[in-house]
Structures are given as structure tokens and as C-alpha cells.
């Protein structure tokens, strides 16, 4: 019996069926690689194309993953219609299509970025009818979110708007968890020296002037912005910095390097730093990629103790233009062309141009540079738009289609963003008439507005600035040539 049991296996007859039947494949197409939706506002609709020989004999399952171990089923039909309820963040969505006949299945995935209304779009810094500061948000889909400070903070910010800046990866101590985190923020400054740093996702105020320092200085604030890998604060004390996304409190200590600052500054992508005017000492400063300020020196042209008033600074690629008015001769305008070649080399004064006495720049009320596509400077004189050709030192009037003559131009700027979609490079013009602003965004050819504005909106108040807030930021992308306007 024992021996028999040993040899039982040798009596086994393999009755397996090796006459295989080919299984029909399932092909899923029509799903984009990524989607961006607003939580509690948007519905994600995906209508995939499914090809197979199974006909209606397929079952579907849509699953959203917050993490590899946390998932929810959000649909069991071929077409997905999901009202987005997830919080701000990035998610993976998988569609599984399975044969009811034999269990064969395939899947296709995509990514979903969930934001709030505030996480993406053109922010419009404006002066309200009371002379205080508020902002609107033009969403990518054309909707306008109005009076955000009034509606989220309970009041506008005291004083006329001075500047706004996007602070990517701003460090702070999360007020809920009391842990050090970072998030994209908006930094607003008024002429009443009021500062408000707001977390973009929910408009929660993180810092004001009294709380954003380890030891609050008595200074005049000019600008908050993100440089390369530092978030910067420019005041008449100098340049303060904290690293993007580094896990700290985000509070500021002392300015780095040379003191001084003003409302006139430019960011050079090749320098990965700023060139700016020191109002106190009448000199030109520059800061490097770490936000350390230095005095600009030049063997030929004076750069300090200048008897000038600065009228404008702006950049075209790695060139920074500084327009000055001579204090001793108000009819004299001087344009400095400062070149920046690399992150490691100090800027140099390339040339200094005397602006012709006949130039309409003499009476101009606002200036802006084209930042990438044309070596020109825009300016407004008597409510007409011109550009100054910085190569040939000539100037021309600009005709912008659809720009009503009875509206007063209050804002001109080249606004660009190509870090992620939407990829744009607009000549942006803001106008004001009877308590209402209008915003016109033009595509450009050679720095000129091309055709009618591709985006417009209007609201109450007077535009000071606009800034596009994107959802992603990477210093590596900036080093690789990605750009966005500060």
C-alpha cells in the first residue's frame, strides 16, 4: 500500500485542455493625460472610446487614487461624470474595462489636479472706489471672481495698491497642524505699508508685516516675489529671502548684502536675480540667485550717487533697461542698458543712451518692457500707447484693436507664462472708465498686439497689476528656460 502510494503520481493522466481560444482584446482611447478641476465646482466628464468584440458585455469601473493604498470608486459606467469633491491636490484616475464573459480586463489611467477657484488664473490687483486695495481673479474658463479680499478677509487692504507678487512654495507654519509646510501664496503690498500674504488655495492670511519677520523692521515695503529658488521681499532696507519650499517658518531675518530698494526693479532670467534702483543712495543694485544684494559697478558709466530719478526698470530677456530723469535737467532722460550674461557674473552696463528731446517718453505716465519677443519698451503718453525701439532708438504709436479711446489706460505690461498650460505671452492693457476697469490681453507679433484681444474681462475699480498664478513651480524649469512674469 505504501509503495503503491509512492507511485500514484506516475499513473496520473493529464486531462488538461490545451486547445486555447484567443481572447478578444479591449482598447481604451479618448482619455487625456491630465485634467484640472475645481473642487466643489466642477464635474469631471470623460467619454472614452472602447473598442472590443465583447459589445455590451463589458463592465466598467472608475477608481480615483489619493495614494497607492487609498482609493475610491467614482463610476461604474463607461462614461465618467464625477462631481469633484476631493480636496486640493493631485490624484490618479484609472478606468478598468472588464469582460463579463472571461474576466479579461484592461485599464487606462490619467491624472487629476484639483484646485479651488483661487489656485489658478490671472489675479488682478486693483484700487477700489474708496482708494483701498482688493483683487479679482480671472479664471481660465473666463469667469471672474470679484473683490476677493473683501469677500474672504472681511475687508479690503488699507491704502492704494502698490504691488502684488506670486510666492511659489512659500514656507509657513500651518495654522491648523502647526507643522512647517509650504504653499503657493499671493503677496500684496499697499502704499499704506500694509502687507498681506495669502495662501492661494483658500485665501487664508498667513503673514502681515507684523508677523512676517523674526524682528519686525520699520521699513517701506516694495515687492514680494519668487526669484529662482528664493522667495524675496524688497523694501528700502534691502532684499530679504527665504528658500522656496524649504521646511522653515518662512519668517524673514535680515536683508542680505547691500541695503536699499525702490519700486523700480527687473528680474533677469539669465542672472536669476534682480537689478533694482536704490532710492536712498541713488544707485543701481543687483541681487543674485540667493537674493544677496550687491552694488553695480562699472568702469565707464556711473552707477552710484546718480543725480537721477528712476522712472522705469524692466527686462528684455537678459537685458535690463533703466530709464532715469536727470534731477538737474528735467528735460534729460537717460536710458541704461544693463546686460546680464550668467548666474555667476555681475551685470554690466552695456551702453547709456540719451533719449531724444522730441521723444514722447518725456511726457509718458507709465512704462513696460517686452520681456521676450521684441527689444522694445512700451509707454503711454496722453492715453496713447507707444513703443520705443531700444535697438534703433526710434519710437512708434501702437494701435491696439478693440481698445476704446475713451477709456483711460491705467496698466500696460507684457504678461507671459509658459511654465505649464496655459502657455501665453500677452500684451496686457488695463483701462478705467467711470468706476469700471477693463482688461485686454493681446497675442503679439514682434511685440505688437496682433488682432483683437484674445481675453477680456471687466470689473469694478482700477487695475494696478495682473499676475498669473499657476499650479506648478520648479526652479529647474526656470533654469531650463521656462518663464513667467513677476
Amino acid at each position, binding site marked *: *500500500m*505504501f509503495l503503491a502510494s509512492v507511485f500514484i503520481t506516475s499513473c496520473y493522466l493529464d486531462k488538461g485542455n490545451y486547445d486555447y481560444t484567443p481572447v478578444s482584446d479591449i482598447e481604451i482611447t479618448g482619455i487625456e493625460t491630465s485634467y484640472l478641476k475645481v473642487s466643489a465646482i466642477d464635474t469631471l466628464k470623460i467619454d472614452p472610446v472602447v473598442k472590443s468584440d465583447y459589445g455590451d458585455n463589458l463592465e466598467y469601473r472608475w477608481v480615483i487614487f489619493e495614494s497607492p493604498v487609498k482609493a475610491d470608486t467614482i463610476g461604474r459606467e463607461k462614461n465618467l461624470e464625477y462631481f469633484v469633491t476631493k480636496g486640493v491636490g493631485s490624484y490618479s484616475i484609472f478606468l478598468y474595462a472588464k469582460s463579463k464573459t472571461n474576466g479579461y480586463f484592461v485599464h487606462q489611467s490619467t491624472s487629476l489636479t484639483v484646485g479651488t477657484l483661487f489656485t489658478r488664473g490671472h489675479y488682478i490687483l486693483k484700487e477700489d472706489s474708496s482708494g483701498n486695495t482688493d483683487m479679482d481673479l480671472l479664471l481660465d474658463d473666463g469667469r471672474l471672481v470679484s473683490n476677493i479680499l473683501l469677500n474672504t478677509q472681511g475687508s479690503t487692504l488699507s491704502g492704494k495698491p502698490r504691488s502684488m507678487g506670486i510666492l511659489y512654495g512659500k*514656507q509657513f507654519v500651518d495654522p491648523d497642524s502647526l*507643522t*512647517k509646510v509650504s504653499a503657493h501664496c499671493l503677496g500684496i503690498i499697499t502704499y499704506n505699508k500694509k502687507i498681506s500674504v495669502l495662501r492661494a488655495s483658500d485665501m487664508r492670511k498667513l503673514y502681515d508685516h507684523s508677523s512676517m519677520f*523674526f*524682528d519686525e523692521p520699520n521699513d517701506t515695503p516694495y515687492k514680494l516675489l519668487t526669484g529662482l529658488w528664493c522667495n524675496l521681499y524688497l523694501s528700502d532696507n534691502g532684499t530679504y529671502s*527665504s*528658500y522656496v519650499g*524649504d*521646511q*522653515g*517658518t*518662512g*519668517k*524673514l*531675518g*535680515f536683508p542680505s548684502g547691500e541695503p536699499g530698494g525702490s519700486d523700480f526693479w527687473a528680474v533677469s532670467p539669465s542672472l536669476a536675480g534682480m537689478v533694482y534702483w536704490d532710492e536712498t543712495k541713488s544707485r543701481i543694485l543687483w541681487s543674485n540667485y540667493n537674493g544677496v544684494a550687491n552694488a553695480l559697478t562699472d568702469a565707464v558709466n556711473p552707477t552710484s550717487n546718480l543725480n537721477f530719478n528712476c522712472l522705469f526698470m524692466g527686462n528684455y530677456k537678459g537685458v535690463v533697461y533703466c530709464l532715469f530723469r536727470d534731477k538737474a535737467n528735467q528735460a534729460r532722460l537717460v536710458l541704461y542698458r544693463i546686460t546680464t550674461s550668467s548666474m555667476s557674473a555681475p551685470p554690466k552696463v552695456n551702453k547709456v543712451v540719451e533719449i531724444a528731446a522730441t521723444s514722447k517718453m518725456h511726457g509718458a505716465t507709465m512704462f513696460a518692457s517686452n520681456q521676450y519677443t521684441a527689444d522694445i519698451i512700451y509707454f503711454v503718453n496722453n492715453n496713447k500707447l507707444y513703443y520705443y525701439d531700444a535697438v534703433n532708438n526710434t519710437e512708434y504709436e501702437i494701435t491696439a484693436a478693440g481698445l476704446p479711446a475713451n477709456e483711460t489706460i491705467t496698466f500696460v505690461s507684457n504678461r507671459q507664462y509658459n511654465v505649464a498650460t496655459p502657455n501665453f505671452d500677452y500684451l496686457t492693457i488695463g483701462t478705467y472708465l467711470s468706476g469700471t476697469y477693463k482688461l485686454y490681453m493681446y497675442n503679439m507679433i514682434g511685440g505688437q498686439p496682433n488682432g483683437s484681444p484674445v481675453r477680456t474681462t471687466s470689473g469694478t475699480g482700477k487695475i494696478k497689476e495682473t499676475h498669473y498664478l499657476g499650479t506648478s513651480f520648479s526652479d529647474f524649469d526656470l533654469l531650463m528656460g521656462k518663464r513667467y512674469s513677476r
Partner: protein
Amino acid sequence: MINKFSKYILIAFSAIFVSGCENKLEMFNHSDGLNFIYNNNVDSIVNYSFVYGPSTAVTDTILLNVETMGFIGENAREVTLEQIPAEGTNAISGTHYVPFNDPTVKNNYVIPKGVVTATLPVIIKRDASLKSSTVTLVVGFKENNYFKSGLPKRSRFKIIFTDQLSKPANWAAYAIGYFGAYGVVKHQFLIDQTGKKWDDEYLSKELGFTSSTTYTGGTNSNYDAAYCEYLLEVIIRKLSAYNALRISQGLGVLKEADGTIVSF
């Protein structure tokens, strides 16, 4: 008959295979032992200075966490501590610490019945000699009727104490990186200027520095680079002003006892 024979064969083979599967386990026969509890080697050392405590204090207590090896005791078990000779100036029993067999402390050295961990107090004394010296007390376990040897790597606890400022263990890679090499005069200057102790607790909780001697692992979650840079700048400015005052008084810049100029 054939069936009966087959059955015996089967039983015999089964017995062989059953015995072949047996994996005999040995009973635990190690003597009960004691270990100090620390998460890493750094925890095995305590740097203490009486200068941080009340000026009237004449003693202080260092708590040593210990654990047992072996079976849980059905009765309280006595722990016998002993001083192990160490490098440097050894603490003197009775002068720098209360002897472990002193009746006032002896009863504290007990593992209560039914438990495997305990906290044992070592009482150090503020002898006048500590004003000018730093002593080391290495504590170990002495075998007794209840406990034999424990794990060799957890058998020592070093207490370094003084009545003057001493280098905190957390004055390591990051502290040196920001504030330079340690010095007693520098330490006192930092205390005077900031009102903080600059001891291990401050360095860890306020600045986020660990005792790591390399930058890897040199900080904890309390670390904020911007704050450390800010604080460094504050201190540099204070030292500059302090030195200017000293120079105006003919004292020269601040120096350590060996003449090293205090700098940050």
C-alpha cells in the same frame, strides 16, 4: 496477515518522517540581566552643569532608565550600581555623587515585582571643585543575587557634570557650522546676550540641532535655516558692539581663557 504487515510498515515509515520533522527548541536559560535604555549611543551620555539650575541647589538628580532581561520577577529585585573607571577626571563617590550604597538612595535601586523597566536616580552633588573642573561618572551594573550581566553595549551610562559651562552634546555639526567651535566664554556670551541657556534642550528644541557630528542627521524638525541665519546675524552684531565697548574700555576683544578670540 498482509494487511497487518503493511500497517506496521506504514507506521514505521511515518514514525521516521515524523521524527525527522521535529525541531527541538531549547529553553531560555540565560541569567536575568539589566540594560540601560537609550535609543542610540548618544543617549548613553548626559552632559550636565549646575550653572543652568538654581544658584542655591546643592544636588541634582540624573534619572537612568533601565530594563530587565529574562523572566519577570515575582518579587522586587535589587539593582546594584557601581562606578566604572573612566577617562578624564573621575567623579569621587561621596564628594561628587551620593554613593550607590548610601541608605538614603539604596532603596531606590529596585525593580518592582511584575515589571521590566524602572527609572533609577543618581544624585550628583555640587561640590566646590566643580567650579573649576568637570568630572565623569560612568555607571554600570554590578552582579548580585538577582541580575547577572546584560547586553555589553547597554551596560554603561556616562554622566559628565560640572558647575561651570560645558559643551553641550548638541554643539555638533550644525552648531559648529553656524556658531563656530565651542568655547566656555563664547557660551557665556551667548547666554548673556540672548537670555537662553544654549544647552542641549535649547539647541534641540529652539534651533533644531542634534548631536550628529556630520551634517547628515544634524537637524531635527525644529530646524529653520532662516531663523538660525537671523540669530547668527543678531549675535554677530551684538559681539561687534560688545567688542567695541570692551576696546573703548581698554579690555580688548573677547577671548577664551586660552587666548582664542571669540568669533562667529
